[in-house]
């Protein structure tokens, strides 16, 4: 199998994105840099990215709803984290 980028892999999955209604929001970036940097490494969907200006960006579309970022940022008040509204988000057809 040829190497594939994460974005390309997510393209294979089925999502119903709740546009304009993010279920995960970065509340504070600078105060919890270490935790967010770990999210850049650990997020299976690669949704946390180090931006050129040094801030960490996040895109909720493509979220696999695992909770890794929630646990890594627990206790830092960095994230507002919830599951997507019912029917929205990823829909595993294999699982």
């Amino acid at each position: 199998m040829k190497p594939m980028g994460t974005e390309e892999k997510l393209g294979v999955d089925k999502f119903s994105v709740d546009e304009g209604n993010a279920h995960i929001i970065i509340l504070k970036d600078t105060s919890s840099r270490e935790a967010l940097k770990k999210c850049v490494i650990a997020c299976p969907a690669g949704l946390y990215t180090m931006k050129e200006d040094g801030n960490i960006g996040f895109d909720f579309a493509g979220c696999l709803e695992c909770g890794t970022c929630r646990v890594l940022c627990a206790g830092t008040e960095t994230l507002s984290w919830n599951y997507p509204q019912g029917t929205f988000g990823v829909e595993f057809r294999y699982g």
Partner: protein
Amino acid sequence: MSGDIFDCIIVGAGPSGSIAGYLLAQAGLEVLIIERGNFAGSKNMTGGRLYSHSLEKIIPGFSKEAPVERRVIKETVTMLTGDSSVSLDFQSELLGEEKKDSYTVLRADFDQWLASKAEEAGAILASGVRVDDLIIQDGKVTGVIAGEDEMEADVVILADGVNSLLAQKAGLKAELKPDQVAVGIKEVIELPANVIEDRFNLNPGEGAARLFVGDCTKGKIGGGFLYTNKNSISLGLVFTLSDIGTEGLSVPQMLEEFKQHPAVKPLIKGGKLVEYSGHLVPEGGLTMLPKLYGDGVLVVGDAAGLVINAGYTVRGMDLAIASGEAAAQAVIAAQEKGDYTAPNLAHYKNLLDNSFIMRDLTKYQDFPIFMENHRIFKQYPQLAVDIFKDLYLIDGNPLKPLKKTALSHMKKVGIVNLLKDAWKGGKIL
């Protein structure tokens, strides 16, 4: 159900929730199962393999009816370095014996089947509904809140998975700690059934399970897995979150490297990615056990952290099913008395204490700590490969006695470390 009050509301239609719903409905209770996904299983993912014993007890002969993938008859553990691998392979008819058998599964199909069994028994399944909160009155859970809707029940079973925000809201569970959970990522790679059978030396219907340790996680705590399904391969990695750093290769990048490893690449050659998924695995064992019950509430399955990672096996679904069964039994007993307070629901804990769940969790209680040892993930795979290299690499140069070369490789790890780890590992397992 009296008025608009259900006898029991179950949050989550995974294996634990559906089994609880199935048994409660069979006993004549009015049961509502609420699932946030569009269908049962649509938010769930497993490595994955189901050990049959606990479901076999509840639905005898289930594997003939359920959408299982393949019956596992071959187990392989492989230690990896960057360019080499050493494997231990166990194949036996015994692996397929009734109640000892295990099956590879894909959850979208499997969970739907199990939820349909609950529905057939009379449970109501409400899909596409996210439960936001619990109704708690005077410390007793009396129902759930989903958006604008409030639904009441005599008792609520929380089967809402590893993150279980609801068990936290009920005050039963502390926030997960990074050393208690691992992130799992997986690709489902489509291949024709005959190709899978040829590649893994299997007969139709038979399956292989493989675990990998070493280079696949770049020496970090975790490992790789491969399970053969009917027409696909489940391939993935698991990393303990406490060992995740702030730089280096990302988890998705490590999966890509794993796929390109010479020991893995030929196994998935020509395959087509059909799904990419991620999930958390509770791996803390007994140390992360929450309070399992409260007034009007019980916690089951992954939500209660009921997973055993013994290194060479990882089990969750068989525990989830047995915990759903125990919760159902406790609720049925509570209904007979008309008392859903914590002291009465403690029966659930008693049932778990006297089952394989607590027996096995107790047996492996020190294992998560033992696994927090980087030698297992770095030095030992290297040691195994070094010894085998000496045995099999023949280039005409004078051969050194194995005893001498093996000893020199062992010295790199440290003989004391080796003995210590062997002793500790032997004691725990």
